[in-house]
């Protein structure tokens, strides 16, 4: 898994490439904790290149939301593929996260 973070219009866009599982999620978690630690108001996770995510990946997403909420931060998911969508669904997370078809749409979407 590879993570790249860029800032665009004040939003942190985190692009993830590869499977997010028990092996790789700690790295994602620390990258995201850094952002919430700095109280970045908006985080967009680009999931377009994530073929698979397991429960530790899901836990990482939920954790990030928990860290962002106290300061009014927002976490959006962009471009999840079929597999990731299904795993979000199975985990009952579809309501928790705003899900967008692409990073651009996630950037445009209102708070």
């Amino acid at each position, binding site marked *: 898994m590879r993570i790249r973070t860029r800032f665009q219009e004040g939003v942190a866009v985190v692009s993830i490439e590869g*499977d997010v*599982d*028990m*092996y790789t999620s700690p790295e994602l978690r620390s990258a995201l904790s850094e952002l919430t630690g700095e109280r970045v108001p908006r985080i967009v996770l680009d999931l377009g290149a994530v073929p*698979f995510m*397991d*429960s530790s990946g899901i836990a990482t997403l939920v954790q990030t939301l928990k860290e962002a909420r106290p300061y009014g931060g927002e976490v959006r998911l962009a471009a999840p593929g*079929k597999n990731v969508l299904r*795993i979000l669904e*199975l985990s009952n997370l579809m309501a928790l996260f705003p899900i967008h078809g692409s990073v651009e749409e996630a950037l445009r979407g209102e708070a």
Partner: protein
Amino acid sequence: MRPPDEYITLSLPSNPKYLGLLREVVGRSAEIFGFSEEEKLSLMLAVNEGCANIIEHCYGRDPSQKIDVTLHLLPDRMEVELRDYGEYFEEGGRSICDEELREGGLGLRLMKSVMDEVVFRPAEREGTLLTMVKYRAARRS
């Protein structure tokens, strides 16, 4: 032509770095045996979660232990067995099916929601044997 039933077995160190390799084996086997894309994902997810639980709860993240995986491929289903060599059953004598575990975390819930059967029982001599079954939709192959 219906495929005969076949076995694939894989033994791995209890190291999270091998989870991807394991998923690949499960996914490829599912493809070879004509499971749909969704069924394939279910199998990959369930086996992943089962192994992650063994790594985490049974071996306490010690990466030098062993996990045995058996894929039993039958015409209408895949039966997956995950076997660990942990102390779980010997120590407490309590089953992983106890009430307390029914309220377990996400991993167990995912396994149960994507598989048709999920059964834990003591393995021979020591450790736990987790059996999961996934039927495949009737296909016109």
